[in-house]
């Protein structure tokens, strides 16, 4: 799966999470915005982490050299 595909998956997961939180605990506009902020932050952090590790392995400059006795 490519970079774009997985990014879209992260986005969709984020949307699903915010919708489900809105459905389960709808407590007024300011609280809803607060929950939304938390979910967006979490999604962005997780995506960044994944994207960084993925991009670093796209076109690597070094390859694994196994150690003796593997």
């Amino acid at each position: 799966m490519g970079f774009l595909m997985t990014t879209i998956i992260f986005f969709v997961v984020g949307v699903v999470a915010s919708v489900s939180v809105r459905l389960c605990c709808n407590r007024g506009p300011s609280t809803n915005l607060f929950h939304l902020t938390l979910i967006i932050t979490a999604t962005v952090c997780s995506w960044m982490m994944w994207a960084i590790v993925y991009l670093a392995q796209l076109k690597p400059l070094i390859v694994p050299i196994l150690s003796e006795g593997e």
Partner: protein
Amino acid sequence: MGDYRGLNVRRDRGGCCPPMDLMRSEAMQLVRIIVPVESAHLTLSYLGDLGLFQFKDLNADKSPFQRTYANQIKRCGEMARKLRLFREQMAKAGIAHSEMAMTQTRIDFDEMEIKLGELEAELIEVNSNNEKLQRSYNELLEYMLVLKKAGEFFYSAQSSATAQHREIEARQIGDGSIDSPLLLEQEMLTDPSKQVKLGFVSGLVPKEKAMAFERILFRATRGNMYLRQAAVDDPVIDPISGEKIAKNVFVVFYSGERAKTKILKICEAFGANRYPFTDDIGKQMQMISEVSGKITELKTTIDLGMLHRDNILKNISYQFEQWNNLVRTEKAIYHTLNMLSLDVTKKCLVAEGWSPVFATSQIQDALQRATYDSNSQVGSIFQVLHTKESPPTYFQTNKFTSAFQEIVDAYGIAKYQEANPGVYTIITFPFLFAVMFGDWGHGMCLLLATLMLIFREKKLSSQKLGDIMEMMFGGRYVIMMMALFSIYTGLIYNEFFSVPFEMFGRSAYACRDPSCRDATTDGLVKVREAYPFGVDPKWHGSRTELPFLNSLKMKMSILLGVAQMNLGIILSYFNAKFFSNSLNTWYQFIPQLIFLNSLFGYLSLLIIVKWCTGSQADLYHVMIYMFLSPTDDLGENQLFPGQKTLQLVLLLLALISVPWMLFPKPILLRKQHNERHQGQSYTVIHNTEESLEIEEDHDSHDHEEFEFSEVFVHQLIHTIEFVLGAVSNTASYLRLWALSLAHSELSSVFYEKVLLLAWGFNNIAILIIGIVVFVCATIGVLLVMETLSAFLHALRLHWVEFQNKFYEGDGYKFAPFSFALLADEED
């Protein structure tokens, strides 16, 4: 400073987005309440139940003894002392009092005072009686011992004396000479007189002093005494001290009055208790039976006494908690009443304090109820005051967000209504922790531990826990978030107790040819697309693992750091917009954003481009030579066309932004100040008296001086801090790499050198030892020490690198008068 005007004006922010929970502290207002004296007590009681009003001390200049309700507080103090006495007695008797109040009936305060006094007197009396009885009991026990043991002496002495007597008689009969009867008569004549003068003292002496006792007796009586001692098997309770001491029973024979006085004094000095003894056997038996009778009598009396005392204490225990609460609340109410100022007419009390705007109706409701319940003729007056004082900061948190808010508050309480970093801390703090902790096996252990705490929440919150347990319990939601994120980053780093798994598809690397000859020299080749989720499992254990992971994690730290710092700068923009501070927006936010991003944002961009293109450019070289020789040709370090011009532009932008941050703001502030004072000077001439009156009790910003040099230096420091901080803070984020490396290395060492080593011996005993050592090392080093370490560093990154971009943190916390908070304070 002219920066923050009109703090109390409600801002209409409907424009871009609605207000967010917890983002800014609640709007507060300064309120004056005028209460008639008869309903004051009840009013404060209801306000204490509500817990949303912080009283200001209007009598700050008075000493505690000058205040109106000092007597009441003394009464409360007395009652609290009595309650403490009861608690001690209950603890000594081993009676537990129930934590919750058993009855909910309202008790009258004065009645309770009388009752407490009575109970205390009764308890003290019962205790002293008990003590006396116990003392007599112990004395009688000792007497019993003396009777028994001394009786043995006399019995044995008697038998040996009769034996000797018979011997002498036998000899007499055997000898049968004429002149001996005279001598014998003389002996017999003298014997009775000697017998008459021989006295004895019997008693008990502590075993450790027995030798010294004997020696001193010997010296004092010049050897004219005979001491018999016998040890008592079990330690005896000393009547005077009440402790168990090993004692000896002694009988000392002496002759003469002087010897007697000496011996008595020595006995006193050694704490030897004396008991009378008769050498008549008949009387001895009688004494023994008498004493044992008395002993059993006393025992029953003492037991009854204890029972009576326990009954009293049990009755107290049913109502103890309720009384305790009542005394505590009354004391708090009187302390608060002391803070109110008495009006000149002495008919009403004036209270001033802060309360949240949303609580207005609740407070007015409480005031009305108090007026009604106290049958007062006059109602209370609720009045909102306008002031320029800075209000306290109040965040409404629930059990989940309170722990995170406490983390932020530990550094500094937010200024009134500035942006609260706590909102983002809820996610970014566990996330940065997880970047440094990254192992899904350890993450799952943490999650299990914290889920146990969360499921037993209700039970644990009512118990008294130790200090460390209290901290862990308070932070259970923080730890849960940390554990969840750790599982995620563990899956990305592909480490389960340092073991990688191939869970998300096939690894991208394979041998060059089927025989894998070159695997250890030239390495594997990339035959497929990159591993879809996380670090490729083939890296673990390879020789090039560290160079690859180090490069990856360092660059990741920089990217995450630049992102978080940008978030901080953007929050400073929101603060500037909220407080309508356009100076901050144009002359602080924008140059800061430009400076940070033209240098480190550009570095992040280079990192990403290098990864995407697989170029071999040396980024250190690029960054350094961007400054040293920006016009030089890039050569093989070129990552994209137009890079040289872009670098020149960014360098220029960065250079411009420094004076942009430094100069305009102080100059414009001075201009603003002069404009304001220009306008003011006319009004001062017209009505001097009025304007002075308005500013009397609240801080006025019109009287403040504007020292240009001070403001300029302040701005200079801020600029230098930001510019130098941009480099140092970015480098500081490299601790994310450092701790993550340490964690994975430790984890890998424990796995390979302990578990695998033990497995290799093929011996069940060694395997078990190995597993035990592995578990202990994992829990002790990785789950406890590493958790604390990563927690600390994530905390530092938030407090310093993130918050110094926007957070002022010089507010004070809202401390309302609340009975619920009192209960927490006591513990």
